């Protein structure tokens, strides 16, 4: 079974690591701070214990935890078969990490970009292994979601796509092929919806509760757009809309000022305890 490196132990890195470990993969989880890694392990352990109750598989928590090692130095990723990268949706940060990983990692290692919106071919351009780089837009919470968007960049080889699909299948995911455009399919639509919902609150037209209630009760969505924003992370929403705006230069993607205020104020949603709503402890 493949050994998988996971870069970034935030919302997505935690979910990806849990999903990999509960399906029997060895994982090397890397972040910049030990404190973040310790909190991530605590959260993964809690989520594994609760897996069955939350409608997932029954998991041997101790066995799954034993498959995970952590490190603050990207050199820990030197010998893995895949790296799934989940650091923040900011080109400057991601670009620097790909330059570094390209030097550190075995030439055979496949780089899997988990991004909300940045086109995959832009990453290929900063590495010496454009055929071995592919995009996977995971859905959140990762262990509970059964499908992902799979994005081959301009140079991605058929073999890389095949191996990645195999890994995704082993994780219990169906991979839906999507073209390499900014925002792919999901976030071309979802980010506009979330942004417009934020404008409704910003302009005093409706409360967050009212907006979400309409989506839940009228459309039958399990969650409204602003609860979804709190789940994703308000900072991540803002970064993603910024990326769409930069790429398309279309004013329909101008970010709602409320999102920027909330991101600056640390009201990032579930992960910070407060966003459009308030939350209890999560780990």
């Amino acid at each position, binding site marked *: 079974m493949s050994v998988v490196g996971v870069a970034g132990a935030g919302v997505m890195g935690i979910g990806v690591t849990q999903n990999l470990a509960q399906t029997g993969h060895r994982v090397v989880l890397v972040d910049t701070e030990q404190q973040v890694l310790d909190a991530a392990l605590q959260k993964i352990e809690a989520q594994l214990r609760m897996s069955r109750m939350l*409608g997932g598989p029954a998991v041997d928590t101790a066995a799954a935890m034993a498959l995970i090692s952590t490190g603050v130095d990207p050199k820990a990723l030197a010998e893995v078969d895949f790296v799934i990268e989940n650091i923040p949706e900011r080109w400057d940060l991601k670009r620097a990490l790909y330059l570094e990983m390209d030097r550190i990692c075995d030439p055979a290692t496949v780089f899997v970009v988990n991004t909300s919106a940045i086109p995959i071919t832009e990453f290929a351009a900063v590495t010496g292994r454009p055929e071995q780089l592919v995009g996977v837009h995971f859905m959140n919470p990762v262990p509970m979601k059964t499908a992902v968007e799979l994005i081959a960049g301009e140079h991605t080889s058929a073999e890389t796509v095949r191996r990645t699909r195999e890994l995704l299948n082993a994780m219990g995911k169906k991979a839906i092929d999507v073209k390499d455009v900014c925002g792919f399919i999901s976030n071309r639509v979802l980010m506009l919806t979330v942004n417009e919902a934020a404008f409704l609150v910003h302009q005093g037209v409706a409360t967050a509760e009212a907006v979400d209630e309409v989506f839940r009760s009228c459309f039958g969505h399990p969650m409204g757009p602003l609860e979804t924003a709190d789940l994703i992370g308000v900072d991540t929403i803002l970064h993603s809309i910024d990326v769409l705006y930069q790429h398309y230069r279309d004013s329909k993607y101008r970010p709602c000022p409320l999102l920027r205020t909330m991101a600056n104020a640390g009201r990032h949603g579930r992960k910070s305890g407060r966003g459009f709503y308030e*939350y209890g402890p999560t780990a």
Partner: protein
Amino acid sequence: MSHNDPSAVVAAFLQQRFPHVEIAHDEDIFALGLVNSLFALELVMFVEKTFGFTVPSDEMRIDSFRSIDAISALVDRQSATV
């Protein structure tokens, strides 16, 4: 931390999370539609942090968290074992 009345503590937590809903102590919060998997996670974390124990795997089921009374009984069972 000592909690003589766990049900009051749990009720206060639910009240703060769902300010617009009145929840009776024996009411099924899952049936009320308040609880999705994300909130279930929060609820378990709240109980573990507040009452200072780890929910054992045989108690990690919906029935143990179904109502304020059920959670309170869970807390009592756990305090009885330490």
